[in-house]
């Protein structure tokens, strides 16, 4: 189905199942421990072996030799495969650093061997016996130092250019009566999904079956086939349950490659999970940024000039952290410029983590907005409302498909009691300095083709098959809701099978596009199935109604089970996107409100209240959508207060590479959270009229917290995370 005109009224608009607060259909499996994740597949007749990875102990250089003699002799060992044994491998399309193979070490903990043994304990013990002789080379690990050598990378096809400019920023900024020019930094961050990357690989002749933990089945399948040098058709990938990804499982990882090589060498299926302490340096992370923001405003509070520049680093061949993206679209202003520069760093590969670009970009921009509003003596909510735009400010002929940022700010301010906010440092509750903060949320709506197959059987059961994944987002449930709505069935009559490369290729889970795109693909397949049913019954497909398990046309009606016949009926299709996202800017909007308390003696910040208001098109399921948003808000708390991969700039690695050193929020850090969804649809986005919320919920949260801390203490911290050492010197004396 080609989606190239805005959606008219369609069966989804009935909202009998879609849009309802339906509990997850996989909820009982997950809460009883019966959902099977990658490492857990088990065939009692298969003698699985265990692979334990070895990571490089240098950040950059060459491996001279690897001595595996002791490891090979260790009890239970079946095989040892080293990066020298396999030699150079072709790199997958989506990987920057190679995952395995060859003598080069590009980053710390890059996989250099896998030890396969009969048991996990044997493999782990033997892996410690592998001896490696390295030639160490000097690397660059410090973004601040590398900043001046950063270059303007070539624009990648289909991606936003590194630089944009409209009007005359310099002149407008120079003549603006009120100006801000500040620099902000965000640190490297780690996804820390709870399920480590894991794969089981089983060869059958030249065919390979892999159970893995992947957000994007087809990308993985292509890249694993490329890396192993086998035909993609010979590769069967399954990932029905994924223990979180957040972008860390978008691209093929080393566990799958090591499992495949290990299984070949050992002659039996091999399981490999990345040990937690290997994950931060072996896989990808959100790159640190240095961001300079300049805003010039008139005394009336209108932005006259706005500039956002960002520096980030990555391995050679890598990409930018696109932290200026939202600044191109979020606020009005006639004179503007953005620029991004890329430094070469020899840390692990920088890549997508939940809301890449916007998450760190808004961490900086939304503090800057708070600062300029204060300079203007304006309320920051009012400042944002005044500077709203309904068109793409770099290209005013291009309107937004639907934009209700103002509604989010107004509803949020009202619900949160924003009027209680006082001057910085003015409110106190015992030992706690109390502050309120706000930030806008913004994230683009991306459209990716997505396919599905829908079968109707003679029992009247509809089964959806698509390689879409559910990484906790609720895909199982919203896909079932979509099929149920389209075919006039209760949700109990729909079965959903996901994450299998035998199924039609879907959008996958990323960029908050999965929910809208994958359900649109299921919509398209259901349209095909409806046509097949109507045609079989000789009904005119224009006036058929699917309702209560029946298909009706005029005064004829037939039960779906009967219509299916003994062979059943199938509909399969892929949603393809026209140019609606070019003619119209499609984005999602929100406002985050936060109340913090800062301990006047210790500088400890605690979140007391949080509210998110989101305008993101139709909400397909308010339960799962709300969970996406509260989860994202939680990640934003980590980003504001504690999360930072500490770089050892001498040896070139992230030091705090486990869950004890890298501090993600825990229960005690998170208060009760409120989420409000604006009641809206966006007919330009898809037949579902939905957009995404999974990343929107993170965008702006950390800045809202930073602004609340400023309001509580009068201390402006521009360098994340806002730990107490950055506050304590500025706190009032405790008498």
């Amino acid at each position, binding site marked *: 189905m080609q989606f190239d005109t805005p959606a008219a009224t369609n069966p989804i608009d009935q909202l009998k199942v879609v849009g309802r607060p339906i509990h997850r259909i996989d909820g009982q499996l997950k809460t009883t421990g019966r959902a099977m994740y990658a490492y857990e597949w088990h065939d009692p007749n298969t003698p699985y072996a265990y692979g334990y990875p070895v990571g490089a102990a240098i950040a950059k250089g060459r491996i001279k030799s690897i001595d595996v003699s002791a490891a090979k002799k260790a009890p239970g060992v079946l095989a040892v495969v080293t990066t020298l044994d396999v030699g150079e491998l072709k790199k997958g399309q989506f990987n920057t650093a190679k995952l395995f193979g060859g003598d080069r070490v590009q980053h710390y903990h890059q996989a250099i061997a896998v030890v396969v043994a009969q048991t996990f304990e044997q493999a782990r013990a033997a892996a410690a016996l592998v001896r490696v002789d390295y030639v160490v080379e000097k690397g660059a690990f410090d973004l601040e130092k590398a900043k001046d050598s950063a270059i303007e990378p070539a624009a990648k096809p289909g991606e936003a250019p590194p630089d944009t400019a409209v009007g005359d920023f310099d002149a407008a900024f120079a003549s603006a009566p009120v100006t801000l020019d500040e620099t902000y930094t965000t640190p490297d961050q780690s996804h820390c999904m709870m399920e480590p990357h894991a794969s089981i690989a089983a060869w059958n002749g030249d065919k390979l079956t892999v159970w893995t933990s992947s957000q994007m089945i087809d990308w993985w399948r292509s890249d694993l086939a490329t890396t192993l040098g086998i035909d993609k058709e010979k590769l069967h990938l399954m990932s029905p349950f994924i223990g979180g990804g957040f972008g860390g499982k978008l691209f093929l990882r080393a566990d799958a490659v090591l499992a495949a090589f290990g299984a070949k060498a050992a002659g039996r299926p091999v399981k490999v999970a990345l040990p937690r302490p290997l994950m931060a340096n072996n896989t990808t992370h959100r790159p640190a940024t240095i961001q300079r923001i300049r805003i010039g405003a008139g005394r009336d509070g209108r932005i006259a000039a706005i500039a956002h520049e960002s520096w980030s680093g990555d391995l050679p061949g890598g990409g930018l952290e696109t932290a200026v993206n939202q600044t191109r679209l979020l606020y009005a202003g006639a004179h503007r410029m953005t620029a991004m520069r890329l430094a070469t760093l020899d840390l692990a590969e920088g890549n997508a983590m939940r809301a890449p670009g916007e998450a760190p970009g808004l961490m900086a921009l939304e503090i800057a907005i708070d600062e300029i509003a204060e300079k203007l003596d304006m309320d920051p909510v009012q400042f944002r409302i005044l500077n709203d735009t309904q068109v793409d400010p770099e290209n005013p002929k291009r309107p937004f498909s639907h934009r209700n940022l103002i509604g989010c700010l107004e509803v949020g301010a009202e619900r949160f009691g924003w009027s209680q906010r006082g001057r910085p440092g003015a409110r106190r509750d015992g030992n706690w300095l109390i502050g309120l903060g706000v930030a806008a949320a913004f994230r683009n709506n991306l459209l990716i083709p997505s396919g599905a197959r829908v079968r109707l059987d003679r029992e009247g059961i509809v089964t959806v098959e698509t390689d879409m994944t559910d990484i906790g987002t609720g895909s199982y449930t919203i896909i079932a809701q979509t099929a149920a709505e389209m075919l006039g069935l209760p949700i109990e009559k729909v079965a959903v099978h996901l994450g299998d490369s035998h199924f039609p290729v879907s959008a996958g889970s990323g960029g908050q596009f999965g929910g809208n795109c994958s359900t649109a693909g299921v919509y398209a397949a259901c349209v095909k199935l409806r046509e097949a049913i109507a045609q079989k019954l000789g009904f005119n497909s224009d006036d058929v109604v699917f309702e209560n398990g029946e298909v009706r046309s005029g005064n004829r009606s037939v039960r779906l089970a009967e219509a299916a016949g003994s062979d059943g009926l199938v509909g399969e299709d892929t949603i393809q996107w026209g140019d609606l996202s070019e003619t119209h800017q499609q984005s999602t909007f929100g406002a985050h409100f936060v109340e913090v308390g800062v301990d006047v003696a210790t500088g400890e910040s605690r979140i007391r209240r949080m509210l998110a208001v989101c305008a993101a098109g139709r909400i397909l399921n308010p339960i799962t959508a709300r969970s996406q948003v509260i989860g994202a808000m939680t*990640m934003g708390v980590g980003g504001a207060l504690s999360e930072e991969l500490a770089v050892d700039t001498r040896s070139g690695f992230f030091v705090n590479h486990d869950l004890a050193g890298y501090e993600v929020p825990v229960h005690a850090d998170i208060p009760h959270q409120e989420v409000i969804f604006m009641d809206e649809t966006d007919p330009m986005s898809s037949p579902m009229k939905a957009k995404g919320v999974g990343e929107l919920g993170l965008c702006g949260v950390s800045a809202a917290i930073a602004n609340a801390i400023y309001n509580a203490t009068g201390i402006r911290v521009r360098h994340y995370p806002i730990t107490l050492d950055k506050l304590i010197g500025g706190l009032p004396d405790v008498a």
Partner: protein
Amino acid sequence: MQSLIQLEISRRDLLISSAATVAVSGVAAEAAAQSPGNAMTYTTKISFTINGEIRDLDVDNRVTLLDVLREHLHLTGTKKGCDHGQCGACTVLVAGRRINSCLTLAVMHEGEQITTIEGLGEPGNLHPMQAAFVKHDGFQCGYCTPGQICSSVAVLEEIKADIPSHVTGDLTTQVQLTPGEIRERMSGNICRCGAYSNIVDAITEVAGTKT
């Protein structure tokens, strides 16, 4: 008097002999005398009750309780998030108390009663805590969830037993079941999906109190 040499047993020897040396003094000398290649016991026979069923196993002394559950008994509901006691995904109940099963060796649990997520309930017959997690959407990816649920069940028992926590105010009165107490006690169970707010709602409902 024991010579110094006899006390300098390596970590590896300790691991190998740990099961054999429980509560027996003087065995260290014997362990130190062993060298690789001699007849050593790498495995130990153990028997414990899991979810009401007696299981007899012969396990590598190094196997954690977590890996016995997951890799030997295929009770994969108990999750491995870190293997280092940092995340709580592996929480199970041993004699009614919650522990991180990755931080304890299987051989240390001879004769004990162990309950895992599979033992609390099953699809169609959920434990009240499991049902409350579904109702309040106290999870997303589901990977931390079995640990959260096992922990939640034990937390309510701990509060009932009047065991204080870091945030308990008055130690002379019964510990109150407040959201603050729940959050503090649940803080060893990380949920990167960030379902905390909903998890507290679920636990609160099962506890029969209001937030």
